[in-house]
């Protein structure tokens, strides 16, 4: 079963981190990614640029409206995601709990439709 793990973190915190904290954060994500790979459950993922680089597009009556910014303003922002393939929700939840994002933000888990 495939699940998307979406990581929501407060992106305003990132520029305030010391270089050592940044390095620590990068190392934690690298170790997590490595663990997912070793377990053979990793099926993709991306680290997103901040919401300041987001654009939202709607088309009404054939006319397109392009707005700067993300779809929704929230306290924490989508910063990236992992796609994982695991037997069940419990396994997905335990991987989510191990994600560094869970300790400084929140990880949302959504099952994916299989086609």
């Amino acid at each position, binding site marked *: 079963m495939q699940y*998307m793990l979406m990581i929501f973190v407060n992106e305003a915190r990132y520029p305030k981190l010391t270089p050592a904290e940044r390095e620590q954060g990068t190392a934690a994500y690298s170790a997590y990614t490595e663990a997912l790979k070793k377990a053979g459950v990793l099926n993709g993922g991306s680290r997103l640029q901040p919401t300041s680089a*987001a654009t939202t*597009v709607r088309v009404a009556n054939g006319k397109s409206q392009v707005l700067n910014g993300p779809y929704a303003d929230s306290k924490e922002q989508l910063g990236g995601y992992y796609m994982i393939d695991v037997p069940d929700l419990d396994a997905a939840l335990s991987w*989510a*709990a191990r994600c560094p994002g869970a300790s400084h933000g*929140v*990880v949302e888990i*959504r099952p994916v439709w299989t086609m």
Partner: protein
Amino acid sequence: MRYLLLMYQQEAVMRNLPKETAREVHGAYMAYLDALKKAGVLVANHGLQPTSAAATVRAPNGKAVVLNGPFAETKEQLAGYFLIDVPDLDSALSWAERNPTASHGAVEVRPVWG
């Protein structure tokens, strides 16, 4: 340059479409998917199960707290994504405009690091 196109739709509306409309919408997504593939810009795509199937996890002190439901309650809900590889933001935006969700919801375009 890789861009993530996040599709926000009203789940309740999409779930209750008349059969004929649902078939048309499905056809529009298939055509869009096909166009992305033909253009050689598609990296990955997934449709998500509804937010009723979502859970969120926080583990602030190493102890996991699991809640049912999505992270954010919004008027429209994240229904899936397309990850595309295109030369610049303008072409990402033009693919976002062609995405069927743009006509009945919103498509957020986010550049990806690396």
